[in-house]
């Protein structure tokens, strides 16, 4: 800490985080789409002049890990020397190092006193970026079908929106009004970040600010290394799969090797399935964010996340696999694979962290999108939502019901907000009873949401888990698998987990997500907890008897009969 004043250091460190937090607020408050303003499907970050991540405004961990890859590569490919004060780059190109097309990043250089100090960036999930289906999700063969591909180009030049570019982008997009508003909110968020960082330069001086940022990265590395020294070093491996790819029913095999060492953590995805001409391909940036997420869960939560942390995350993901796909593979469903990878990594590490890690979780983004064209009004309204599911049981704790998992923490779209702004009704929002993976500590329940359409609508589900539910651990059972159902004229049809279909007025789509996996043998579950679940209707009396082996006398546990049931095994 030689060159840097430790007092100024802590002051500046907190001010940088405050700057990205202010970007988060500016974006959320002025955005148009429910997906951004209510569901918070975006993130913000600050990078130094060498494009190393320094501070992040916390929202969606999946974005934070992937922006680390996307932002530097975008700026380098455009040429940092071509960026002037007031410029804003826009990009969503998955290749060479981005994520899926819906996630659009805006990047602004920050200049102060005539010199470059760094970059602020925000990434937001746009409801529609064009492509083969409304909401730009679906099962396609190539990335070109997934929407407009925007290589790094200037959306704003010298503080003025580059109208030619903006119009060219909007021309590819269905929900122009909403998307236009979201772009303006993203521009405002970056402007907020630029002003805040400039104020820091004015206050502390450029030299001191830069020295402090440098030290902040080293400080974070030192602390991360101190944490790594405490972890159980060794090699941990596990396998898992994504059910299918949307074109073939062949499971997408996943294999992960995690090596915890004192000087870093090595994640290796060698052995994962070859990339598909189907929407299950994760880019290198997406896979990296899975690895970073897992390490972050294992260390002191107080640890800052910046380059000093990321430098210790080493990923080997062979090119041409579903964990590092190559151009022009489709990527829109890559997040399904990415979240499943986290589950597999947790599965590998569970023997080393049995008190900390859960049984199998929802571990899919579980996306649905739809669009309705109003020819007369000349408008095309698109909607996007993701659904929670059951979390896995943990040592001493049940898995929470209906909750997001891993790098995904988006809120649900409120029913009233959805019905007010989008041409759909929601008939039911409920927990899926008996969907828990049974266990000493049971998995959480899945979620059911039923949409009713009164207009001709194109609907897409891009999800997974309808072949097998999340695994149980240490004797726990798997959670119930998900179901995606079309109800037409009263008849139910099971849909695939990755499909697009045309709906007619009166159709109902019912999404029923999976329950979480159980932790430990169900017949060891405290009978009083089983009773509580039965009284609340979360677990049926039949399953309580058959699976948990608990007998009741009225509203009480029958201890003797329960003992006998459990004895009989």
């Amino acid at each position, binding site marked *: 800490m030689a060159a840097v004043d430790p007092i100024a250091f*802590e002051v500046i460190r907190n001010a940088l985080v405050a700057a990205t937090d202010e970007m988060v607020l500016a974006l959320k408050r002025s955005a148009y789409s429910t997906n951004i303003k209510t569901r918070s499907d975006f993130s913000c970050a600050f990078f130094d002049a060498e494009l190393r991540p320094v501070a992040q405004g916390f929202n969606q961990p999946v974005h934070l890990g992937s922006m680390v890859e996307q932002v530097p590569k975008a700026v380098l490919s455009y040429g940092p020397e071509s960026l002037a004060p007031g410029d804003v780059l826009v990009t969503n190109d998955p290749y060479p190092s981005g994520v899926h097309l819906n996630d659009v990043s805006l990047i602004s250089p920050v200049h102060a006193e005539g010199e470059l100090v760094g970059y602020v960036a925000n990434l937001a999930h746009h409801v529609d970026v064009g492509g083969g289906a409304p909401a730009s999700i679906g099962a396609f063969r190539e990335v070109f079908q997934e929407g407009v591909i925007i290589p790094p180009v200037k959306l704003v030049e010298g503080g003025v929106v580059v109208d030619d570019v903006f119009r060219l982008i909007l021309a590819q997009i269905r929900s122009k009004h909403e998307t236009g508003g979201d772009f303006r909110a993203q521009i405002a968020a970056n402007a907020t970040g630029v002003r805040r960082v400039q104020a820091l330069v004015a206050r502390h001086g450029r030299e001191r600010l830069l020295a402090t940022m440098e030290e902040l990265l080293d400080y974070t590395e030192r602390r991360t290394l101190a944490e790594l020294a405490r972890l159980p070093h060794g090699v941990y491996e596990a396998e898992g799969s994504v059910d299918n790819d949307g074109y073939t029913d062949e499971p997408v095999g996943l294999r992960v090797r995690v090596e915890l060492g004192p000087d870093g953590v090595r994640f290796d995805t060698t052995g994962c399935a070859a990339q598909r001409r189907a929407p299950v391909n994760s880019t290198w940036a997406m896979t990296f964010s899975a690895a970073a997420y897992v390490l972050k869960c294992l260390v002191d939560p107080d640890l800052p996340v910046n380059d000093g942390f990321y430098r210790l995350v080493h990923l080997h993901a062979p090119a041409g696999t579903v964990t590092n796909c190559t151009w022009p593979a489709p990527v829109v469903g890559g997040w399904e694979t990415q979240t499943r990878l986290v589950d597999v990594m947790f599965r590998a590490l569970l023997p080393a962290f049995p008190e900390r890690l859960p049984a199998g979780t929802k571990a899919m983004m579980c996306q649905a999108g739809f669009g309705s064209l109003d020819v007369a009004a000349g408008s095309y309204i698109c909607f996007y939502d993701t659904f929670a599911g059951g979390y896995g049981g943990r040592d001493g704790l049940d898995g929470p019901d209906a909750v997001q998992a891993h790098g995904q923490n988006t809120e649900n779209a409120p029913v009233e907000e959805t019905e007010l702004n989008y041409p759909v009704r929601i008939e039911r929002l409920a927990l899926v009873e008996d969907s828990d993976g049974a266990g000493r500590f049971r998995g959480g329940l899945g979620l059911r949401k039923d949409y009713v359409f009164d207009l001709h609508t194109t609907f897409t589900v891009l999800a997974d888990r309808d072949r097998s539910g999340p695994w149980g651990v240490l004797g726990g059972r798997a959670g119930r698998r998900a179901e995606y159902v079309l109800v037409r004229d009263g008849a139910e049809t099971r849909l695939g987990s990755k499909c697009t279909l045309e709906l007619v007025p009166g159709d109902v789509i019912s999404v029923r997500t999976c329950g979480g996996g159980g932790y430990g043998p169900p017949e060891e579950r405290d009978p009083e907890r089983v009773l509580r679940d039965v009284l609340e209707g979360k677990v049926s009396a039949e399953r309580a008897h058959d699976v948990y082996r608990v007998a009741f006398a009225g509203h009480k546990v029958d201890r003797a009969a329960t003992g006998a049931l459990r004895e009989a095994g």
Partner: protein
Amino acid sequence: MSVRVAIDIGGTFTDATLIDESSGAVSIAKVLSTPADPSEGFMRALERALVEGGVEARATNFVVHATTVATNAIIEGRIARSGFVTTDGFRDLLEIARQVRPSLYDTRFEKPPPLVPRDRAVVVRERLGPDGGVLVPLEDDSVRAAAAVLREQEVESVAVCLLHAYVNAGHEQRVGAILAEELPGVPISLSSEVAPEFREYLRASTTVINAVIRPIVGRYLERLESRLEEAGVRGKLLVMQSSGGIFSSEAAARRPVFMVESGPAAGVIASAHLGTTVGRRDVLSFDMGGTTAKVGLIQDGRPTVTKDYTVGGHAGAGVGGMSLSGYPVRTPVVDLVEIGAGGGSIAWVDSGGLLRVGPQSAGADPGPVCYGRGGEQPTVTDANVVLGRLNPAYFLGGELELDVEGARRAIEERCAGPLGLTTTEAANGIVEIANAAMVNALHLISVQRGYDPRDFLLVAFGGAGPLHANALAREAQMPALLVPPSPGIFSATGLLTTDLKRDAATTLLRRLEELDPAEVDRGFRELEEAGAAELAGEGLAAGAISSLRQLDLRYVGQSYELTLDVPTPFDGAAAAELAGRFHAEHDRTYGFGAPGEPIELVSLRVTTLGTIAKPPPRRLPDAAGAPEPRSRRPVFFAEAGDYVDCPVHDRYGLGAGARFAGPAVVEEFDSTVVVHPGYAVSVDAAGNLLIEEEAT
């Protein structure tokens, strides 16, 4: 002679402040809180304040009360056994909540348990559309069936939240009427009355909180009233709302969710009133105590109010009002940014070799090392002692002698040594880090919301506020700050200077270009008449009742509205101005406007105020010449780079009109004011210290 009394119940102490309505003379009393039965501490404090003031109980005109009883009930889980009634298909609204984890990287997280468990959540057959139209008529039988389940479950209170009831309350009112028949004596809270706002989970959560605390708060207020009556107090009992107004104890018992943040609002209200009396209507309030610091913003004499608030959660999961933990509340709350930086915040060196302050606090017990009560970890207060800012012999008026050596040793061993700094450098660092956190908070509430702090007066109070305020003002480039007399009890005076307030709103979704001014004006009049009737029912003369009209507007497609004041009557001219005003306000708040984008009206808001006569300010005798310092001692100032021989004034010896320059320290019983070099102090007639940057 008549007096009014304020009672503020905090975690440790219950404070009573009594003010003589004619002379403005103030008497105070402080007693230990009695958590088992807070009404005991309440009465003890009241009785002691009456003795202090030398008045009879019957001279009490009214008693204003701020209490955390509602919040504590939720945090501690002492809530009523309640039922939840909603639309068929949505029984699990409370279970699912927002489907998010309260912390991003914690694999052992838990969702806050629903305040009404699933076996007491029931549904009725009905459905409204987003325009309020009836899609499925309410089936009375389904309500009676739901009531039967709740009766069986022996609920003490019921919350009702039906989909889209914010736009059409008809079904909820009918459900309420049937439940009242079926469950006699059980209070029913309707979402359309408690919080008629869209987004069902937020509205349901607010209504459920109202329901689960209603029996507890109701019984508590009843007990207070009967005790007051026994003691011979004839005045009304009034309760502070989270929004900064007061309401009658009857209204509080019906809508207790409006008082969840009753305590912290008082300090902001007191600052607003103080600012107005000195001719400054734009004020930032800064309240620093033992464990936290809070900043609030007052614009044109009115505190800013927010509806993004959660109760029973913890800070840190989100930013601003975006906390993902706890239970959301959508009733108006005075907008405060609160951070874990107080006198008791602990300074430590982390595993990366970085000096940190907080969030752990030594609290009141064992407290800072210098208290000599067994505290071993250095705190912000210890740093202030080492820097000479606190007088070891005159802390709490000399009631507690401070252990300077202990403080120095703790900072030396735990901070300075490991960092290779001198003890003074480390102590100064602790204060600077705490100050920087507070400046960030100041920034969040001002710059982030589009206000420039340099246009504001900083009002500093709380036991530790005046110690740090000058440094904050300096850092934020605010030219002036004001320290009221007795800063430690300043918040309580806010209870005595606030007005009766009733906030009401109604949803009216209209594109601006389709707006019918007459319809809007009619909507305002209805809200105003209801508000005036309620306040008149509480004994206010018509002349004392006034109202403020506001509209919530947004760009079509947005969800966060901006609120604009509008004139009475609301006519074509007023309507014509709206678009321009909205674009400008959006630009001020978010840094961009979008002229050409369509705008829509979302709701009408009316705040009805019942003005209560303010007691005159205390008047100080004039100063007799330049003030003489009581003593001198070395005090460290970073800008001087060293300890400076600094005059120490006794605040009680300062007369009106006294002036002196910094560096200086001013001491009084419950607080110490630090004046930095380059600033000058003047004492006004009411005894406030105005500290201003000296012209250079």
